[in-house]
């Protein structure tokens, strides 16, 4: 039995602390270490410095001067939040147990420049007798035009159901002339729903967009192009689709708009989207808080970076005097294009 004592106990004692030596020390959770880590993570991984007019080094000097280890957590959160606010990116957040920092400038823009009057749509277009299919609310708005309201890409879409819906309207007297697909104030969600919505429509395998990920620590160290193509579906639904957008369209809604512009039968009308074409990832800070930031960038088929907003094919801003009379001039313009 003496061999056991000789061999087992020292081995256990040795190994218990081994990984601490091998993994190295953890950073301390002080205010200065947290701020510095946050700044560095964005400096090395944030993917959209090319379209964000911000001097990141100057921001470190200016805001870093306000950081000291005796400051409260709330004070540190404010300084770190002002750092991330400089990017005006809806995919950038700072998350603590007591608050979540989002970019107020962007939120104000998305809200103030809303290009939809929900009451007008609910009463005069969707109507009280509207129908629901999955995440889509829909109704006939006359002249063979189907109106679909899709408020969030978090609501599921099934491509077979989209096809079913279109087929049902096509069977009606007069047939289906086209679809008004309204995604105004749609803040994004599950990007998979984008493909489910587009899948039934006629396409020819065209290039939709190109994505690049950050692969190095330099601000412009992007990896190789990853091109995203439409389905090759020449026998798909052959109807005109007008997509209604505004500044409240973000993330997956902007991706959808980007793709819709490349479909032959799609037309985008309304206001520029809010952007958000960089896919985000999470990370943790030394003091336990979390951050979120964009780590990829997306270029349109013609090479433009519409991170700050995808422009429509035609700008039509909502006329509030008309909505007061029950008329949404954006929907009316879309309907006019369909019936041309």
């Amino acid at each position, binding site marked *: 039995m003496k*061999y*056991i004592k000789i*061999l*087992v106990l020292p*081995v*256990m004692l040795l*190994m218990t602390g*081994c*990984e601490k030596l*091998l*993994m190295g020390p*953890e*950073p301390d*959770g002080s205010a200065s270490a947290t701020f510095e*880590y946050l700044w560095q993570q964005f400096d090395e991984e944030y993917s959209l410095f090319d379209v964000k007019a911000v001097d990141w080094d100057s921001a470190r000097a200016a805001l870093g001067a306000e950081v000291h280890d005796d400051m409260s*957590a709330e004070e540190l959160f404010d300084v770190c939040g002002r750092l991330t606010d400089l990017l005006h990116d*809806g*995919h950038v*957040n700072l*998350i*603590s*147990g*007591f608050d*979540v920092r*989002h*970019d107020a400038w962007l939120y104000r823009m*998305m809200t103030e420049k809303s290009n939809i009057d929900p009451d007008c749509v609910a009463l005069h277009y969707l109507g009280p007798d509207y129908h629901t299919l999955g995440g889509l609310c829909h109704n006939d708005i006359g002249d063979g035009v189907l109106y679909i309201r899709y408020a*969030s*890409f*978090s609501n599921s879409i099934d491509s077979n159901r989209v096809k079913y819906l279109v087929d049902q309207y096509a069977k009606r007297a007069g047939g289906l002339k086209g679809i008004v697909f309204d995604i105004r104030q*749609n*803040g*994004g*969600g*599950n*990007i*998979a729903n984008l493909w489910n919505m587009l899948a039934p429509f006629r396409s020819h395998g065209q290039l939709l967009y190109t*994505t*690049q*990920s950050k692969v190095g620590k330099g601000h412009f160290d992007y990896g190789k192009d*990853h091109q995203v193509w439409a389905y090759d579906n020449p026998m798909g639904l052959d109807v005109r689709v007008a997509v209604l957008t505004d500044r*409240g369209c*973000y*993330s*997956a809604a902007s991706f959808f708009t980007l793709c819709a512009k490349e479909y032959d039968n799609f037309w985008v009308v309304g206001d520029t989207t809010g952007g*958000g074409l960089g*896919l*985000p*990832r*999470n990370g*943790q*800070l*030394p*003091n*336990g*808080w*979390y951050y*979120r930031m964009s*780590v*990829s960038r997306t270029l349109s088929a013609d090479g433009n970076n519409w991170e700050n907003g995808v422009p429509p094919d035609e700008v039509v801003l909502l006329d509030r005097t008309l909505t007061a009379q029950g008329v949404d001039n954006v929907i009316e313009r879309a309907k006019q294009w369909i019936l041309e």
Partner: protein
Amino acid sequence: MRFGMKKLFLLLWSVAAVSAAVGQPSWRLYFEPGLGASVFRDMGTSPLSYHGPMGTISMGYQHEGKVLVEADVEASAGLMHSAISKGLNYPQVGGFAMAEAGVAKNLSDRLSMRHLLQVGVGAMGYADLRYNASLGNTALMLTGLTAIRAWAEMPEIVGWKSANKRYGIDFDHSLMARLELLPVGMFVRPDFGYNDNFTAYNDDQYLLPRNLECRAKAFPGVAATVGLVRRNGASGDVTRLSYRWMYITTGRNVEYPFAAASHSLRLQVTLMNRIKKSNAL
């Protein structure tokens, strides 16, 4: 999970049954549960280490013929948390799962060694997942690592005998040690996320295949096991109490290093055996 373990058990059982049917009588099927602690640190997503208890379960088949062949499948899981939990920070928990499989061969005769030496090769996979849920926020982070492992084991460094006079059973005891190296592997960080879009008030769900970090490199991984083995002289059943330490890291082979370590105390029991009496120690 229960269904998976049941299928695994049936698979090993059928291997044992086939071996018996073709006239290879010297084999045993064993089961090895264990408890311990684990730690991992993924610098790609957090500078903090996650610690916590772990459980492990292993099933193996050992065939003692002219060569010794051992195949085992192991699964581990743990519940982890970060040391940072002060104030109003988010609760942070994570988990991991690990599966290992391999075969070993007895090389003592070939090397003319006095002590039995087994060497083996196998593979292991490790995946960790961190989940944070508070104030409606959810964040998932996932890391995976697979590695080829090679090991050498001396199942009988020293041995001694004892007897249970009441039941008239003789026991053979031995002290065993195993050293494992994880010389090459593949690291995967798929960068999957599900979280709230705090600006637009919608959930973001995304998978970033373009951000997949997948590297096949040499990883400086190591594991060591020491244990006490007792073999029942009458039945041939083997019972083993062992302690295992494992450390695996990507080192500087990836952009942001990943490292994981675990300690576990395990009890191996024989489920069934067809050990030749002549093979008894």
